[in-house]
């Protein structure tokens, strides 16, 4: 009931504020030459409030480092309570990844907060690959988003991607453990990693300083990329950011208990020797963390997740799909295209290749046909020639025969003529003889 009233009250307040802005607006309107697109930020503001916000925060670290307590302190709520016990209350044998979603409202702004816990991390004797379930979780959220983004019918795209990972370092005072280094190295390309020194109230300020220096040195040595604050043009902001950078990694203390100190009610841890106040900047860096994580850089954490980590995941995934095991170096230039454009280009290349193949085949074909035709022609010519020769031969023979006959005919004719003459002579002679006989001249 109280909640509802609070909301209504806030809504009313907001409406009042809006109308005030509008009035102010009218005043500004009368300023000469005012176009009004300077009002765009207000429009963006208005729409974002209506839409609401969401944020997914992952906490990783061994049990007993006060992760749940810190979350409760950060968000000033009992995220983990009797009804919804935190992971520390549950004994895990293997690393789990669990998420709790809560809806919180403040100043008219709604935030859907998802806390991702990793109970069991680093608690086993053999912690090899204990980061794998974490990586799998982050990747699966990227995959969900990628699939949702790639659908033909895109409606609501819930963003469950992990925007920030708070990594809890045990306050040993010495340096990073091998597990710390291994985890951060494996995750710095997938999520914004913010390392924290947990339970910092067990370190004196000097010990803490040394510890921080050592950790940062090791982080640099191992080339671990922790979340970096973006540069701003604003001088004041730059100064603040430099101050924060000097304090990294932030040493935090959390508490679920409110204690009275000097008349003030503060969250803190009561010791016989005093109270370690959570929100006291001289006691720990909790306030710095909260300001940075929630009040100033929450949006940037989301942006870096979206523009850098997610895009990395996406381009790797798509490159794998389209290249299908082809040599990666060959395809470096093709990453600037969409898989579809790439297929289009491959199609064009293929068409050209086929054309070339076609012309080659055509050439070979033509050549072979030409050869064969030539052969045929040659053989035809040869046969023709032979035929001609035979014909000529025959003709020659014919001519010879003709000649012979002609000769023969002539000879025959001659001889026959001769014979006839002879015959005639004979006949004449015999006639004469007859005559003579008759005449008696013949004896």
């Amino acid at each position, binding site marked *: 009931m109280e*909640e509802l009233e609070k909301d209504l009250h806030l809504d009313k307040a907001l409406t009042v504020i*809006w109308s005030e802005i509008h009035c102010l*607006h009218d005043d500004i309107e009368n300023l000469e030459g005012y176009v*009004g*697109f*300077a009002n*765009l*930020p207000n429009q*963006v*503001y*208005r*729409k*974002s409030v*209506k839409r*609401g*916000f*969401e944020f997914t925060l992952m906490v990783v670290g061994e049990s007993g480092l006060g992760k749940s307590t810190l979350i409760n302190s950060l968000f*000033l*709520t009992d995220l983990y309570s009797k009804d919804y016990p935190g992971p520390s209350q549950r004994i895990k044998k293997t690393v789990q990844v669990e998420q709790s*979603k*809560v*809806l*919180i409202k*403040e*100043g008219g*702004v709604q935030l*859907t907060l998802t806390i991702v816990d990793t109970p069991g991390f680093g608690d086993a004797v053999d912690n090899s690959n204990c980061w794998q379930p974490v990586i799998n979780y982050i990747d699966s959220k990227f*995959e969900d988003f990628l*699939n949702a983004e790639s659908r*033909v*019918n*895109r409606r*609501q*795209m819930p963003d469950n991607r992990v925007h920030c990972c708070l990594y809890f370092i045990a306050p040993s005072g010495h340096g990073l453990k091998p597990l710390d280094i291994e985890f951060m190295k494996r995750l710095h390309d997938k999520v914004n990693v913010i390392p924290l020194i947990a339970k910092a109230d067990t370190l004196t300020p000097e010990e803490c300083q040394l510890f921080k220096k050592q950790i940062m040195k090791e982080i640099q040595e191992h080339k671990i990329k922790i979340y970096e604050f973006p540069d701003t043009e604003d001088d004041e902001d730059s100064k603040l950011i430099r101050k924060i950078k000097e304090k990294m990694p932030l040493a935090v203390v959390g508490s679920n208990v409110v204690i009275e100190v000097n008349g003030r009610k503060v969250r803190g841890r009561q010791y016989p020797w005093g109270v370690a106040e959570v929100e006291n900047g001289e006691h720990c860096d909790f306030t710095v963390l909260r300001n940075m994580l929630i009040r*100033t850089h929450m949006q*940037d954490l*989301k942006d870096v997740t979206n523009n850098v980590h997610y*895009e990395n995941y996406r*381009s790797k*995934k*798509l490159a794998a*799909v*389209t290249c299908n095991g082809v040599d990666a170096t060959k395809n470096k230039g*093709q990453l*600037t*295209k*969409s*898989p*579809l*454009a*790439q*297929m289009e280009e491959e199609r064009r290349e293929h068409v050209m290749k086929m054309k070339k*193949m*076609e012309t080659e085949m055509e050439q070979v*074909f033509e050549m072979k*046909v030409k050869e064969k035709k030539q052969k045929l022609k040659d053989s*035809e010519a040869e046969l023709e020639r032979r035929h001609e020769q*035979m*014909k000529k031969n025959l003709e020659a023979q014919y001519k010879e025969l003709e000649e012979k006959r002609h000769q*023969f005919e002539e000879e025959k004719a001659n001889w026959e003529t001769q014979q006839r003459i002879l015959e005639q002579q004979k006949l004449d002679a015999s006639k004469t003889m007859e005559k003579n006989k008759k005449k008696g001249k013949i004896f």
Partner: protein
Amino acid sequence: DLYHSITTYGEGARGVPLSGHVGFDSMPDQLVNKSVNHGFCFNILCVGETGLGKSTLMDTLFNTKFEGEPTQHNQPGVQLKSNTYELQESNVRLKLTVVNTVGFGDQINKEDSYKSIVEFIDTQFEAYLQEELKIKRTLHSYHDTRIHACLYFIAPTGHSLKSLDLVTMKKLDSKVNIIPIIAKSDAISKSELTKFKIKITSELVSNGVQIYQFPTDDETVAEINSTMNGHLPFAVVGSTEEVKIGNKMVRARQYPWGTVQVENENHCDFVKLREMLIRVNMEDLREQTHTRHYELYRRCKLEEMGFKDTDPDSKPFSLQETYEAKRNEFMGELQKKEEEMRQMFVQRVKEKEAELKEAEKELHEKFDRLKKLHQDEKKKLEDKKKSLDDELNGFKQKKTAAELLQAQTQQAGSSATLKKDKERKK
């Protein structure tokens, strides 16, 4: 990107009370800071016949002199000319692109007039889609050229919409936010104007043209938006000339019978247009373009290319499956083409071989025939030769016989003669 997370907030989340000020109520401010640092961009398309004052209105709205010469009426087709300007007001930077339709309504045959406009709008969608589909993409620094608002200029005839207007708006209403305005409305009297507006609105409704509605879902602006929706189409007058009214210089058009003041709400709806287009709903126009018009374009394009969200069994596809399926289909297609070509060649080779074999066979047959002929001839010749030889032999024989006979005869004769002689001699 602002639009990347259209969330289902609060779903499956339980509400918990806060025992103090956490500070996430600064989120809207963080978001605003980011977008102010990034700068804004807005793209307006002005569609209307030549001479309706499109350029002048843009100059008046944005209080600046945009470049460009007034166009002539002799354009062969409709062209789209776009210009981009960097404007700044207070700390807000705006990259404004104004696209003008040049030559709209000037042709005798206006059937294809809308086509170049639709093409232009689609081209901007396509460019964004291509960027979105790239493997390595830079969406957050992409210069968005998609048209966020289309001001449709209606000629102030006072009667009704022209058929060109209806046709064009119908083609555009699913692609862009259309805000119809009555141009040069100082040519219409107030009573005529009311009738004109009613006529236009009813014609739009009866033709099913969806114009942009100022959103009424946000309580803070619902009232003003809903009122303004009732004033559409806005009757505007544009002017960059200033006239002294009272002790101020105001933008106006001076006539012998009076002065039309651009920013006087009694004279025209210019102020309403500016309020709605720029001061209240600019962000919503951008959002609608992205979440409605662009999504529609994208969906159609992907479906055209054969993408589906579920396989034949209605199970959802993962992106990987979709791409792999597409790729396999694609590779299969290519292989099939290759196979087909090869087969075709094999076929041709076979055919040609058969052809040539046929030709060879024919050739051989021909020569076999010739050979036979030749053989016949030869035989004939042989026969002839033989007969000649026979004749010759016969003749020889005859000759020989004759000669023999003759010899005999001679001998006999001679012997007879001899005998005779002998006898004589006796």
